[in-house]
């Protein structure tokens, strides 16, 4: 067995410097990982049983039943993917193609628009290693990495000494927070907090654009123009700037045009990049894989030979318009994360859950198939939040099947 260091799959940072101690094929101690990572690597508190209609069954029976449900459905949906390896995601796309199914992932209501813009080269991006070595101005926009990605600031973006940032955070880096509240990240980043009202991100982008063009920046929420001009000056002088875009920013933009104009303007005078704050460890991986296969990052319907794509193919629209009649959920908990009325509708159709741990969706599923915990019980590859491919290592032995193998077996049955 590999001695490490191992990769943590707790979030999309994929920290690759984790040491573990094992006892009786269980992880008993985890070094360097944050709390989120430790709880992921130590395994599920309540592992998911293998069931059909709530009764414990053999894996083969569950797989046969899952295949039957998917085969009989007219509009099956394959959803989730954010907590699976690239190999499993590839297989899930193959399955959806074979079934003529709808396929979507959590990026549909998460960071999808930004990842799409990056893959279509509409926004300049960079890697987290470049951020560590070069970034001097870091903007956290609608993001609170202290909670979503606890090691973000310490490992890459703010505190570490880099090749061109030898004096570290106190002298060499400036962190700016644009948020609707004083988050815990804002507390440690000093006075550079720009507090804006909920949904005012496009207005603030326009004001910043004016300030960068040496005009008086006006905002509907009356922020002191001097402060915005001060911010514009910091941004103009940046040698290597990076914007970490959180869900706060994505949710308040109806279209990405204000962001595109801002990034273009920033890149006229200095160098600015954008990295989306992806949550699940391999959500970006799914977007890359599907983009390579179909030209779209999510919301795809394999209708025979044709591929349909659009907002009407998103998981939310499919459920609220009663289009789908069966769903396979891989490594996700949509009943807990989707809005109440939509979750209720989803709970009424036959569900198949593939996941290592029990969750709300698995408890309401017709078929549950437990899988190996990726990055702990099985290896594979994943794509980090900045688009870099990371190899995951296996830490402990298990007799559970991997997501990839389960999907392959279901395909065989079909």
């Amino acid at each position, binding site marked *: 067995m590999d001695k490490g*260091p191992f990769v943590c799959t707790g979030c999309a940072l994929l920290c690759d*410097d*984790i*040491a573990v101690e094992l006892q009786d094929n269980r992880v008993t*101690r*985890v*070094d*360097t*990982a*944050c*709390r*989120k*990572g*430790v*709880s992921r690597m130590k395994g599920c508190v309540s592992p998911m049983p293998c069931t059909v209609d709530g009764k414990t069954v053999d894996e083969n029976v569950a797989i046969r039943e899952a295949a039957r449900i998917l085969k009989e459905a007219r509009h099956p949906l394959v959803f989730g993917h954010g907590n699976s390896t690239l190999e499993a995601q590839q297989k899930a796309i193959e399955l959806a193609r074979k079934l003529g199914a709808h396929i979507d992932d959590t990026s549909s209501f998460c960071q999808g628009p930004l990842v799409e813009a990056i893959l279509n080269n509409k926004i300049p991006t960079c890697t987290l290693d470049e951020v*560590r070595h070069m970034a001097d101005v870091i903007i956290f926009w609608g993001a609170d990495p*202290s*909670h979503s990605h*606890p*090691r973000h*600031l*310490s*490992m*890459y973006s703010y*505190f*570490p*000494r*880099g090749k061109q940032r030898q004096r*570290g*955070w106190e002298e060499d880096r400036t962190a700016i927070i644009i948020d609707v509240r004083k988050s*815990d*990240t804002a*507390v*440690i980043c000093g006075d550079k907090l720009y507090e804006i009202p909920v949904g005012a991100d496009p207005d603030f982008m326009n004001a910043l654009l004016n300030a960068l063009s040496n005009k008086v920046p006006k905002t509907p929420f009356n922020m002191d123009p001097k402060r915005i001009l001060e911010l514009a000056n910091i941004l103009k002088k940046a040698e290597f700037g990076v914007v970490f875009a959180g869900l706060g920013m994505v949710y308040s933009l109806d279209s990405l045009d204000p962001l595109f104009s801002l990034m273009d303007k920033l890149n006229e005078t200095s160098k600015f990049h954008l990295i989306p704050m992806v949550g699940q460890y391999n959500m970006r991986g799914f977007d890359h894989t599907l983009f390579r296969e179909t030209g779209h990052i999510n919301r795809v319907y394999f209708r025979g030979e044709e591929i349909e794509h659009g907002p009407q193919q998103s998981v939310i629209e499919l459920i609220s318009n009663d289009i789908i009649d069966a769903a396979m959920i891989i490594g996700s908990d949509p009943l807990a994360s989707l809005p109440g009325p939509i979750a209720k509708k989803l709970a009424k159709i036959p569900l198949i859950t593939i996941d290592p741990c029990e969750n709300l969706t698995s408890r309401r599923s017709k078929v549950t198939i437990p899988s190996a915990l990726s990055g702990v019980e099985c290896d594979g590859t994943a794509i980090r939040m900045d688009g870099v491919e990371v190899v995951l290592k296996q830490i402990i032995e298990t007799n559970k099947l991997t997501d990839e193998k389960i999907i392959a077996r279901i395909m065989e049955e079909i």
Partner: protein
Amino acid sequence: MSNLMGIYQLLPKTNCKKCGKATCMAFAVDLLARKISIEDCPPLKEEKYLSGYEKLKELITPADNVTETGFLVHEDKCIGCGNCVVACPVNVVGDPEGTGSGRAPSNDKVILYIRDGIVRPVNIHECRRFGHNKTLCYACIDTCPTKAIEFV
């Protein structure tokens, strides 16, 4: 994070001297430094001061794990982000390629490291707050997002 006036406000403020101290303020000073415990104030358990007692119980964590420099980690608050580990000047000097660059410790010269998602002190005599030439270094406190580190 506890402060002197905050603690004093929760005490009976009667200067009854039952604890052996001259005033309630003197009691508050010793309580902040963890020299005595809240149980040493007899009137605090009376009914009219009970709300203060409950609040103080949350505020004043027992100093069992406190190091010689007074470094105390509130384990229920620490999220293991490692900001303190990377920002600590002693870690940066002793381990520039490892913790100083945001990675796992690469040698045993570090004084802070993360185990099981919680920061742990080690080699505490190397801390800037230790010994005759000690300085009031705040690197680990200022960088903590959840205020889990305290010097008592």
